[in-house]
């Protein structure tokens, strides 16, 4: 729901050209898992990621990684014959900022629910 009560909404949404890739990229559970793994590990090679996700084919992993790179969520670095992947958290920060007004909306609704339930009556 977009009728949020935050002054920054209009300003933030105007520069959302990049944001759409992130939402679509993050819609996939496997890609979210890979990012979570990269939050824990500094860098991961395709081989290491394959070990973490034995159900995925090498091709499948490469496809997911390419999409993550395109969305600006991963940086890559060559080390000999290996390609290492590192999380770039900046777009995630932008995503969080974008979601802030929505989070605020829910804070207000839950406060209202608490009041409705008489939680504030002592």
């Amino acid at each position: 729901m977009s009728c949020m009560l935050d002054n920054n909404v209009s300003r933030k949404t105007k520069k959302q050209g990049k944001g759409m890739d992130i939402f679509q990229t993050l819609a996939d559970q496997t890609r979210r898992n890979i990012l979570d793994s990269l939050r824990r590990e500094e860098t991961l090679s395709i081989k290491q990621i394959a070990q973490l996700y034995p159900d995925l084919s090498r091709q499948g992993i490469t496809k997911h990684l390419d999409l993550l790179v395109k969305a600006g969520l991963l940086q890559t670095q060559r080390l000999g014959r290996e390609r290492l992947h590192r999380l770039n958290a900046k777009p995630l920060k932008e995503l969080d900022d974008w979601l802030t007004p929505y989070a605020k909306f829910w804070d207000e609704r839950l406060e209202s629910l608490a009041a409705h339930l008489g939680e504030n009556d002592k």
Partner: protein
Amino acid sequence: MKALGSIDKEIHFKADIDRVWQAITSPEEVGQWFGQKASFELRAGSIGWFRWDKYGQFTMRVEVVEPKNYFAWRWMANKGEAFDESASTLVEWRLRSTRDGGTQLQLRESGFRSPASREDNVGGWKAELQDLTTFLEDSSHS
């Protein structure tokens, strides 16, 4: 862990689980604290709406009803839109009783898309920003 691209909230109520369940699933009650009015039937697949005097009416669809434990619905981002699952976000309410007789609520809204990804709906989004701007201006003057 917090899911990426979703909103997670958690809150504890002193009210027991029956009371909280009632408050989040009865349209009459939801109309009292969520918006100004709500209409839906408490069964999966029911199409309903939430209404705010200021913002308008938002279409929703009840997804899952597991009495006392789990309630989920989807809703549209823009006012007045007919229900379209692919353009909706999912709102999930999980309840559990706590030792003190109260209730823990976990709320999650997921499935957000940035407005730029919804080219067919740019007009709707812009109209809403206009409404929002008007709202913010109104409230800053009052």
